[in-house]
């Protein structure tokens, strides 16, 4: 039922279904209609035009009534097409189930044969069969059905293989049921939906194919005519009397188009990926729909300053507030850590800076991002692009997915350079080698010609860092760059980043869920929860005296080497869903100190100097920390 509503929601599919039903209905009632005999010739009235007296669609080259011939031809074409689909499905499914159920040598032998048949362009096989059996509609039907058997066999086998080792089949086997019984009662009912779908996608094609064979004169023989042979017979008079060709041709088009529309609708309704709209492509820059006033830049030292940034995901009627008003800033040579659980909005915050949040569904709905004093939210795409990678560069998690799998790492580096600097290829290559050396990739001269899959995870991440450094940016935003790496490699990468920022004076925004990493690298830290910053301050101060209950619980989760036997406290509960945030503190439901006041209204992020916390029951008195 749900399937039907989904199908009807797709207007095109519904239209296709209605047209197809009409045609089928018309074909069914054709014998009952007051039509002329389709086979009675009347040479005196040849080639009458449509609208002629007594002949609604005119007459053909033998003076036969075209409307009657069209409807009888449609009947025949539909019948043959459906029959061919049925036989192909029946034999294909039988072969597929046997191969999939018995497996082993039977499977191997059958599938080899099927592959062999698929090595033919289908028409050759069909022609060979018709050549052997002789022209005729039944033989054309056999040929079209036979040609499609491999397709069904292959699909059904795949499904059956999956089923053959399911528990319920094993159970039936253990219960002593015979193979035939198991196939008929356990396998077949589960395979039938697949058969039906495969039929619905191929039936239009089979109608086309039988019509094609008839068109060639190899299918239905006179005086009997399906749509294909009507078209074939009319071809001789194409130029003098085109209507005799157009009438059957248009009918084939209408039928096949109806089937295709319906089939697409069926497929879309059954494919959950299409349903959720997950197959939408992200636009080059995040959509901006900024409401309210634009906050000013705040104090001017920072190279990058986020002010009240809000980014949401709009999925159907739901609004997920991934980033709910975040203030962050980072000065040249400074490293800011942004920490939080997965889903806290830290990555979305980072991607919002350069408009890289996938959109749809992402939308930046408020706030500002100041880079060197200029607001980038809503900046023209071309301007944003010129800053990307040149002034603000990213390092992403999981370099296997973030590097292009089919380009050599050197080419990806060279591209990063040449996008922003008009240097020659050889110069860019020399630069790329230097970058690889700088991130300590051994044998940089030869590794530059490697593909990402030929490198280890640590090496790939170094390539990612080299790419971020390619244009000597002002800011690097590193989104969990070490999460996928083992501990020793992680330590190397961190010290590399630390060195680079001291050498080059670049500002780093380091996103992580790991306090150990923050302690090692960051001057300041901001803790995020449910899309907002709940605590911020110099790393030392936050680590030593966490003020927000969430921060202290997060720190308690980190095991300490040589720290003795200590209970590792997991935080009970889950982070809240950001599409239905309650007023007040988002952490309150998981917090031991939560009181009624916590749930009342917005709590400000307050504190002296560089320290601030968003809590009315802080764990510790805030002291003005020093960076």
């Amino acid at each position: 039922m749900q399937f039907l509503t989904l199908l009807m929601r797709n207007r095109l599919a519904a239209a296709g279904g209605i047209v197809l039903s009409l045609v089928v209905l018309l074909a069914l009632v054709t014998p009952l209609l007051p039509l002329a005999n389709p086979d009675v010739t009347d040479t005196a009235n040849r080639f009458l035009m449509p609208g002629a007296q007594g002949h609604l669609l005119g007459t053909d080259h033998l003076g036969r009534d075209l409307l009657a011939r069209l409807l009888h031809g449609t009947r025949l074409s539909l019948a043959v097409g459906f029959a061919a689909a049925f036989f192909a499905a029946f034999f294909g499914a039988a072969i597929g189930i046997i191969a999939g159920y018995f497996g082993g040598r039977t499977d191997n032998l059958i599938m080899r044969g099927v592959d062999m048949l698929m090595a033919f362009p289908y028409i050759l096989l069909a022609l060979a069969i018709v050549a052997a059996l002789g022209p005729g509609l039944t033989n054309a039907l056999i040929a079209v059905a036979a040609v499609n058997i491999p397709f069904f066999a292959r699909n059904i086998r795949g499904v059956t293989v999956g089923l053959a080792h399911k528990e319920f089949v094993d159970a039936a086997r253990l219960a002593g049921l015979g193979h035939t019984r198991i196939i008929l009662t356990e396998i077949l009912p589960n395979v039938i939906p697949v058969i039906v779908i495969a039929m619905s996608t191929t039936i239009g094609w089979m109608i086309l194919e039988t019509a094609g064979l008839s068109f060639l004169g190899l299918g239905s023989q006179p005086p009997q005519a399906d749509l294909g042979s009507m078209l074939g017979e009319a071809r001789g008079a194409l130029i003098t009397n085109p209507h005799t060709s157009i009438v059957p041709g248009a009918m084939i088009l209408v039928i096949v188009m109806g089937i295709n529309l319906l089939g697409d609708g069926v497929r879309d309704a059954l494919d959950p990926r299409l349903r959720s709209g997950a197959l939408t492509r992200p636009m080059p820059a995040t959509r901006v729909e900024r409401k309210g006033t634009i906050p000013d830049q705040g104090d001017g030292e920072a190279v990058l300053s986020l002010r009240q940034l809000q980014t949401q995901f709009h999925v159907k009627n739901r609004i997920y507030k991934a980033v709910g008003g975040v203030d962050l800033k980072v000065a040249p040579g400074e490293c800011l850590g942004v920490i939080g659980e997965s889903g806290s909005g830290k990555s979305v915050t980072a991607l919002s800076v350069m408009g890289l949040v996938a959109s749809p569904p992402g939308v930046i709905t408020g706030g500002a991002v100041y880079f060197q004093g200029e607001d980038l939210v809503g900046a023209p795409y071309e301007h944003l692009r010129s800053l990307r990678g040149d002034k603000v560069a990213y390092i992403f998690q999981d370099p296997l997915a973030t590097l292009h799998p089919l380009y050599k790492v050197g080419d990806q580096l060279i591209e990063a350079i040449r996008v922003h600097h008009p240097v020659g290829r050889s110069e860019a290559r020399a630069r790329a080698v230097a970058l690889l050396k700088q991130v300590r990739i051994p044998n940089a001269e030869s590794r530059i010609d490697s593909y990402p899959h030929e490198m280890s995870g640590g090496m790939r991440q170094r390539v990612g860092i080299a790419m971020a450094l390619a244009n000597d940016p002002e800011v690097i935003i590193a989104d969990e760059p070490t999460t996928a790496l083992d501990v020793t490699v992680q330590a190397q990468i961190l010290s590399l980043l630390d060195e680079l920022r001291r050498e080059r004076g670049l500002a780093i925004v380091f996103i992580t869920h790991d306090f150990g990493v923050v302690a090692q690298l960051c001057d300041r830290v901001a803790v995020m929860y449910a899309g907002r910053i709940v605590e911020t301050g110099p790393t030392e101060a936050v680590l030593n005296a966490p003020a927000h209950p969430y921060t202290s619980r997060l720190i308690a989760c980190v095991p300490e080497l040589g720290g003795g036997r200590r209970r590792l406290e997991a935080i009970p509960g889950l982070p809240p869903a950001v599409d239905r945030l309650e007023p007040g503190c988002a952490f309150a439901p998981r917090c031991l100190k939560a009181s009624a006041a916590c749930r009342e209204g917005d709590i400000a992020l307050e504190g002296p100097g560089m320290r601030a916390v968003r809590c009315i029951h802080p764990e510790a008195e805030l002291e003005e920390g020093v960076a």
Partner: protein
Amino acid sequence: MTGYILKRLLSAVPVLLGITVIVFLIMALIPGDPALAILGAYATPENVAKINRDLGLDAPLVARYFIWLGNMLTGDFGTSFSLNRPVIDEVLDRFSATLLLAGTSFLLCTLLGIAAGVISAAKQYGWADKGITFAVLLGISIPSFFLGMMMILIFAVELRWFPVSGMKMAYGGGGFADVANHLVMPAFALAVVATGVVARLSRSAMLEVLRQDFIRTARAKGVREGRVVWGHALRAAMVGIIPVLGIQAGFVLSGAVYIEMVFQWPGVGRMLVDAILKRDILLVQGGVVFVAACYVLFNIAVDVAQSLLDPRIKT
């Protein structure tokens, strides 16, 4: 790479043998006495015996297969009785015409289909996407032979842009321009369905790829959107598109049979249909085996192209 090509060629041997077995068995199915079918009214006992001897039909089935196979390997596909000409000569002549038609169509459907798919994906839900989606639906629903006939009516009869049919002018034609002029309509008519299929597939392959992390990386580097789409994304999407191009080549080759009928193109498809109607079994057998073998080899070329494109495939 050479090793890989050799390996793929070797693996084609059983497929090619399988094709000959299948064709042979189908032809052996012919009910009644083929000699009678061929000779019709001329079926005197002497003639029947001669035909049976010529066709090797007096030997047992297995022996007949190996004789036939052995002859083919030496390039002897037998003699067409309806044309009174060696089968291989006729097939080669006709196949070159088909190759010109189908090859042009294949190039067209590849270029147009991929371009349409990429534009459609890059402008998802925009007017270009909707227009292309509708055109594609129309393209895959229209029978190519009907489309061909309509093109003749519009572009040859009404507008007189192109000749109605044939491959060259009857007198004084045959130059490059003449053949090209004759080729335009059939090549387009043949390409339409395959273009639709390729466009559809390219669109979904592109949509899949455009969501990948490495596309975000390219954008984060500041790569221009045109290059992101036509470079980074298309390059990765091609890995999914190329195998389908191999399958489409089979569809183009198949569709060529109808188009050759409509446009009177002197190709192998029309030859096969004529041969079937005249019960010229050797010509059918030879034509089918030859074209199928070419198709198998073409698919090996597709595999090789795929391995060149995707360094992750072990060669």
